[in-house]
């Protein structure tokens, strides 16, 4: 199964459930993309960043470029994850085989 989890709320601990869900699904063999947007982009740039551990479990972590730029953390976010823009996000949203959960 393929998943798109969108984390939008303020950073951990609010988003911890999204991180955990992504990790659990990936460990269970599912294909998981975690998209960080809005206040959740702060999760990616804390030290130490949780992104490498998720990536090690096979989770693809994307960071909303616009949300990162609005918060002035674009360069920091780019160091730990891959920035993504609206056209790519639109394609993900239009992918009917990608189960999408936004929290």
């Amino acid at each position, binding site marked *: 199964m393929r998943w798109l989890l969108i984390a*939008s*709320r303020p950073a951990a601990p609010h988003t911890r459930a999204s991180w955990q869900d992504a990790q659990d699904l990936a460990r269970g063999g599912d294909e998981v993309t975690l998209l960080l*947007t*809005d*206040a959740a982009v702060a999760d990616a740039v804390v030290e130490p960043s949780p992104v490498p551990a998720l990536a090690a479990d096979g989770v693809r972590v994307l960071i*909303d470029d*616009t*949300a990162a730029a*609005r918060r002035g953390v674009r360069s920091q976010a780019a160091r730990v994850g891959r920035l993504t823009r*609206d*056209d790519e*996000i*639109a*394609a993900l*949203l*239009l992918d*009917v085989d990608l189960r*999408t959960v*936004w929290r």
Partner: protein
Amino acid sequence: MTAGHLAPAAPDLAVDATAGPGPGTPTPTDWDLLVVLMGAPYADDGVSTALRWVESVARAGGRVQVWTCGYATLLTQRALGESKPRDVLGTTSPPLSSAAWVDSLIASSSGRARWLSCRYCSEERGATDHVDAVRVRPATAFHRHVRESAKTVVAGVI
């Protein structure tokens, strides 16, 4: 259009003849995406992110409909006018109000986008004077819009 504009004899089961490819049993191929906006529109930037992505989906050729619930029904009130108040520093021209933005989106989408507002939520909040682009729908029609969409994404909580 105002709340009640679409009031048919059997509103809960009525088919909006101008919706999708035509009346009849909805199929998941009528619309590519249904985005459900819930909660207060100014509580955080989640709503503006959702609107940005809705516009991107329409620009990419997708057929997208938005259903607003709860306080999100306030986004399209006619009283919001054409623009937001000018930046206090006066450095930019006034941006479009959310209501004018929705009108613009629908007008420029060539039928690939539409905006639905829950009548129950609108009336409960006295928010019944929507801009023309908005289709006011009975709450019980929600299931129909889910069924006619290939995918549904819910953003926010009430």
